[in-house]
């Protein structure tokens, strides 16, 4: 289990997390939602050690978390210029099994691996990064907006892959489209501010989606 206890983090005077507590069980998919700027990406960056943990404890199965436990798909994945899709997969894979897995996923998502990534569209870039990251056999997978710019068909394919390959792993993903999360997640954490996080289990998803609709309707009714 991935366990976050009393996490504290601030950008200067601006507090992002004030004693945040979250748990992510193994073999589960957890969706992370919240307004822009609430700190979803920041949380991912703390987990992956891109940002230094300023307080609190992050453990995986009781052990202190290390970056090599995590596969992380950032919002804007990095690609070397003049690099082919196949080369990217070769580099990202840590063993032949991962490489084969990534190639299978890539063929499912119709990625032209012999083309330069520079010539890929935004969605294709996101897809190849997803494929490379998800094929890694690390116990924690973090996906920051994996559906950004991806076409409808690939969206479904990505959902399928996440759903069917989450066994024995902790998968955490963020998205701004609720259905892409509710379709595959076992639980949702709704980050509201630095202290407040509400948890919604699978049977509460419909009610939560309805609440969101009513809340938005109320907000705009004044107009």
């Amino acid at each position, binding site marked *: 289990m991935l366990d976050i206890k009393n996490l504290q983090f601030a950008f*200067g005077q*601006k507090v992002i997390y004030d004693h945040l507590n979250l748990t992510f069980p193994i073999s589960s998919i957890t969706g992370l939602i919240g307004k822009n700027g609430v700190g979803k990406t920041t949380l991912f960056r703390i987990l*992956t050690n*891109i940002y230094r943990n300023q307080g609190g404890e992050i453990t995986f199965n009781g052990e202190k978390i290390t970056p090599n436990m995590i596969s992380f798909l*950032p919002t804007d994945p*990095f690609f070397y210029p003049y690099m082919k899709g196949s080369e990217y997969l070769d*580099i990202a894979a840590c063993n032949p099994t991962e490489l084969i897995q990534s190639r299978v996923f890539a063929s499912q998502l119709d990625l032209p691996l012999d083309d330069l990534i520079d010539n890929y569209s935004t969605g294709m870039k996101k897809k190849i990064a997803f494929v490379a990251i998800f094929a890694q056999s690390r116990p924690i997978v973090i996906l920051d907006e994996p559906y950004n710019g991806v076409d409808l068909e690939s969206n479904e394919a990505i959902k399928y892959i996440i759903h069917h390959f989450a066994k024995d792993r902790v998968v955490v993903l963020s998205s701004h489209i609720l259905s892409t999360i509710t379709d595959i997640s076992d639980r949702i954490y709704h980050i509201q501010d630095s202290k407040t996080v509400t948890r919604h289990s699978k049977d509460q998803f419909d009610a939560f989606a309805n609440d969101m609709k009513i809340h938005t309707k109320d907000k705009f009714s004044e107009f």
Partner: protein
Amino acid sequence: MQKISALLKLRFRQIYRMVDRVGWLLFIIFLFVVLGVGLQFLQTLLKLPAYTSILFSFVVLAFIDFSREDKVFLSSVFQSYSSLVRYIWIENLTLVLPVIIYQCMIKNFIFGSGIALATLLVSLFSPMFRKSELTHAKRSIPWLPMHTFELRFFGEKLGFIALGYFVFGIFSFWHIGVYAIWILLFCFTLPEVFKWNESREMVHWLPNFVMNKVINNLFVIGKLVLMPTLVAFIFHPDMWYFTAYLIFCLFTTILLSISFKYATFTTVFEASIASNVVFLMLMLMLLPGGALITLIYAIFQYFKAEKNMNLLYA
């Protein structure tokens, strides 16, 4: 080890593909210029005491390492810290290998091993230091006008590095070479400053859009380089023609960078596509009188830029 060799192969392939795209002729020119300037620079460096030159190598390598944008990616593909350090070390070592071999050939073993040591030190600390985004409070440079926003945003992004750079310029009283390096560093940074395309809504097109942009930037950059230039003129009056040539190079670079940006401007791509060509044209300026060729090329690009912007907005 397999991953390290795959990454190194990729780096070589990248160079090959880039050269293949830019053109081999330009690459050969570039190689000659680099060799010419590089060897001369190395000779100057060798005249300094060994520890100074090793320290200098360390600073240069650390600077290059700090500006790497692939660190997060690399730490995600290497499973352990030691293999990551090993890869970065091998890459750094490959980068300076010609210099080390040359030094060993002329039996300057202290310098050769010193540089190798510098690469090791830089690599050891490399994963710990990366460009940080650990602040929500954006550094602001309000005295730089918004119509030169590329310059302003770039300065804000660099923060203290930009400040350190401008302080370094004052040291041109010590040696004219300091001023030369200072201006050339500015020239080679400018294409990066003007590489990114603003969104369509940010362009307020008026006739002679590109020319106005060039003039605005010329004035602002002129003010920025005024102090070190005056220092160079006052302390090295015998080298006035050299100083004037460097200023000419800088102004040519401004024209070239802005013109190239708008000649290839499109709202589809977020960055100018052919910065390698710009870089090679800048290398040409290092040849005596080469700035004239670059200027002609820049003027050609300028007309292309005005035409492109007219087509998009007029």
